[in-house]
């Protein structure tokens, strides 16, 4: 339960807002951090905390693209393919990226490493093709830089996995 | 003079094929657009075309058609969409064979075929039920209802060609 585990943080979050309901976004981030994605139970927990119906919390989680509603890969790649980006080759880049990883649109690699999906505008049209990986922007991409990034992430994940295996995973 | 012309006509027809046909023994093929008894059609896969929308009944000027609809399930499927005709009846005593039902049908399920031998000995028999109207399934295919795989038939009306 978030309520027990993060009592201090929840209190701090509530302190920031005049109305408890306003804290819903911060609590959703907290739930996502804890469970990896916004679970059905997390919605119910948050609803109980802010005094509303779970449906309303689920609605907010569904509206914003930064909340995941199902388990995703360790690296969550969101590629903007809106019109301005597409004009700069983002859709072609997206196709190639999918091919490179061998997955479908919105799919996750079998090793659980990457989830790739196309999204609406990320407000970096002048630096397209671009993508957002776990809320960090990577801009002016082409397949060469992309392959380098993938290799880098794979290596990082390997380090993390090894560290986890010896029992002291660095905090993410 | 006229008498001779008259006899000549008679004489001429004596050597021609008679126009009369011996109906019960012989039959003339109906014209392509002849409107006879209705038939409820099936798709090639054997599922019924009728979706029980009742538009034929609404279009019918003689109020001869009665339709009641129900919902398909994958366990018991009649038509590809969500809805099928649970009851489909046409009162042939009322029907005027105008073909409006055919025009109104959104899935081309009802067609006025060439069957014209309609006779009944009581009024109740004049009401053709769905079982009587429905075409048999194509050869070798199972009829309806039948069990289908979940997730195959998910549209409310089966996909049709672009009407544009």
């Amino acid at each position: 339960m978030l309520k027990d585990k993060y009592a201090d943080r929840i209190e701090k979050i509530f302190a920031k807002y005049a109305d408890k309901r306003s804290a819903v976004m911060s609590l959703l981030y907290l739930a996502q951090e804890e469970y990896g994605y916004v679970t059905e139970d997390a919605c119910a927990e948050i609803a109980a905390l802010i005094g509303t119906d779970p449906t309303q919390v689920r609605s907010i989680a569904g509206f914003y693209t930064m909340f995941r509603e199902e388990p995703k890969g360790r690296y969550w790649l969101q590629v903007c393919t809106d019109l301005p980006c597409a004009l700069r080759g983002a859709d072609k880049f997206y196709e190639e990226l999918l091919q490179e990883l061998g997955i479908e649109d919105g799919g996750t690699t079998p090793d659980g490493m990457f989830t790739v999906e196309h999204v609406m505008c990320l407000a970096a049209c002048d630096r397209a093709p671009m993508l957002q990986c776990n809320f960090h922007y990577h801009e002016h991409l082409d397949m060469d830089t992309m392959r380098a990034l993938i290799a880098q992430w794979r290596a990082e994940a390997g380090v993390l996995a090894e560290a986890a295996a010896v029992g002291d995973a660095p905090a993410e | 003079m006229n008498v001779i012309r008259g006899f000549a006509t008679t004489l001429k027809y004596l050597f021609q094929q008679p126009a009369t046909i011996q109906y019960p023994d012989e039959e003339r093929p109906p014209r392509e657009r002849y409107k006879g008894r209705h038939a409820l059609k099936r798709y090639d896969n054997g599922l019924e075309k009728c979706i029980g929308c009742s538009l034929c009944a609404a279009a019918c000027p003689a109020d001869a058609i009665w339709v009641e609809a129900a919902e398909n399930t994958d366990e018991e499927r009649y038509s590809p969409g969500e809805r099928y005709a649970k009851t489909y009846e046409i009162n042939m005593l009322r029907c005027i064979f105008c073909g409006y039902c055919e025009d109104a049908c959104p899935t081309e399920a009802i067609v006025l075929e060439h069957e014209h031998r309609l006779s009944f000995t009581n009024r109740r028999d004049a009401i053709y039920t769905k079982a009587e109207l429905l075409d048999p399934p194509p050869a070798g295919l199972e009829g309806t209802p039948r069990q289908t795989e979940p997730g195959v038939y998910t549209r409310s009306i089966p996909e049709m060609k672009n009407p544009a």
Partner: protein
Amino acid sequence: MTTTVTIHIDGVPYAVPDGMNLVDAARIYAGVEIPIFCYHPKMKPVGMCRMCLVDLGFEVRDRATGELALNPDGTPQVRWGRKLETGCTTTVRAGMYVRTRTEQVQEARRDVLEFLLSSHPLDCPVCDKGGECPLQNLTMRHGPGTSRMAYDDKLHLDKHVPLGDLIYLDRERCIQCARCVRFQDEVVGDDVLAFHERGRRLQIITTSTPGFDTYFSGNTTDICPVGALTTADFRFGARPWELTNVPSISPHGPVGENIALSMRLDRDSGGVQVIKRVIPRQNEDVNEIWISDKTRFGHHFTLSPDRLREALARKRGELTPVALDDALKAAAKALKEAGNSVGFIGGPMTSNEDFFALRELAAHVGSRKLGLWPATLGDAAPAAEVGIASGSRLTELGKGDAVLVVASDLEEEAPIWFLQAKQAADRGAALIVANLRETKLDRYASRTVRYGLGGAVGFLDGAASDETLAQAANLVVFVGNEGLGADEHGVLLRAAANLLITTGHAGRRNNGLIPVWPGANTQGGFDLGFESAATRAMLQSAPDVLIVVGADVAETPAGAAALDAAKFVIALSLFPDATTAKADVVLPIQSFAERDGTFTNAMRRVQRFYTAQGPVGESLPAWQVIGLLGQRLGMDRPRRSAALVMKALAESVKLYAGMSYPALAEAAVQTPPIGISPGFYGGTAAAPTGGTGLQWPSKAESRAKLSVTPVEAPQAVHAGAGELVIVPLRRLYDRAPEFFASAVMHGRIPQPFVALHPSDAARLGAVDGGRVKLSAGGASLDVTAVVDATAPEGLALLPQRLAPGAFPQEPVAGRVEPVAEAVAAD
């Protein structure tokens, strides 16, 4: 009063109230229909669908002089907006000019419709809404003939999503107007619907348990402007043009919701007319355009296979089917022998005509024992004195007004009043909820009062000194009988009357007392001289012959005992039940759907219902059965129609003077008109054909002098050692045959249970979900224990009519003992 301003719509000046919504003003005052999808006059405008775009302009005034600037031809100059504006989010004000027919506006409408249809599946032939669909209608009227979008590019979403067991969602058909979401949030307060995702994929979701958890879910299917929401009950039941809407009145509860029964022939029922669905019928004085799910889905009892179809009489101790004549003969014989020792008990669905026939029969045999069921109600005289004034509308209560709810769980007992009380609170009225336990209305209350058992009278007696109530511009008091004995209920009603009189609220419009009676025609019974107290007297000492009409008297131990004590029992009933099992003659009667009649709701509005379906079996209307019985006792033969019964009733009962069927059939003008025939606001509510009913004035309205009668609370029930006070509650969804016949509702009807406070449960050793045995007054019930922290300590809250078996209907001291589970949990 609001001031009137002049606005010009399409060049014509109209006088409209200042600040009114432009769409409403155009519709009501100018007869101009600005097309809409998302706007609904019962909810706040949101401007989501953009269908109501109009060209808006204002007259130009000279800044220096304030004079109107004029064109050379003398007409005022108008500065038109650069773009179109949404009519639904605009309120009218002086000097406004509106154009609704320009090419620009028409093009905007075409474009909006083309856009809405770009993802619409166009499956109108199978859609339940097809034929009464605002999207269809407005597309025909304003839409483009063709679409530039490729048909094959339509976005496909799930078509069969159950939102709970009552409502299905078709995600493709949804046009994202949010009417359902807003209804649940603004009108009901159960915000269990919401939007998920965004853009084209925006869709309605619910995650409540059970899904779409509310008593009002069916209304969303009415207001849905497309076929996205459909009811499980009606799904594919009929095409709208095949239905005949017969005006009727809900037989469930005291509100008297105006409804229309959509009738159609049905092959499975043997080719007879059946009720395919129930839709609301607009009556702004009663239920506006809302009905509860109980009313909407609780109609299946009318054609239930369990209905009594033939008369029964006791032969050699066994009830056997007999001809109606023989049954009547046996009943008449018993009546003749009994002389004037005859008692009459009428139940909650008994119509005014039936009560009147009973009254005539009673007069003929010389009996004055006119009883009303249930036997737990106090005297209704306070309601006749200071009952809510004629013409009052709960929808008009707002800032400065007060609504007081005492001893009633309005959501369970009268759901429509729950909505109206909640919305009055939303508009700023002070809502005070007093009860011995927490109820859902507490959420919206400005103040909640919690009293102990027997404390209701004390609270209400002291309420006159409460400033909120005393100084309220208008005051409406709802009085129920939850947790009250019959005497206490009577005293509480009197205390409410005292409050209204001392605070000077009695007799004024939008003020007064609303008794939350248990039945659809409890008020009518009181009006015709039937009393709950008379029933109690009959239960004490049973008359020789007891005539019971539509009342399951055997549902209480005292009632069952009285039936045994009476020498002869004549039961007129819809269903075989515990009462008919004890009867000597059982006569089948017709339900509200099979006959004409009138119900009087708890706001004293007499309303007509009409014959919709054919009779079941040999059943007759109760008034006719009673008339036939009377004929055998030497009375005139029964009147030929319900209209003639009502005519006689109106002539002999002063309160009902002038209430003939033609007078009751007159429909008051509804503003705004939302019913189907005007069809403008979209949705399936029927127009008020068939009459909106007539209210008889309370005594206070006739300026009669009213006096305060001091009240004293009767002794409350006390639990002895090891006992709890078992308090019966009324729940909306119960297992009474009139509701349980609707199989579609079974998932929502709880298992028989009793709610216990955690400390009581711990003391008694009852666990949550475990079985307990309740015993009181010689009766016992086996139910599930629910440990509920909101239950008051020392009380066991027992919803009525869930468990089979007789049990007292008043608070009673009794034992609650856990039952050892016979079967091991596996």
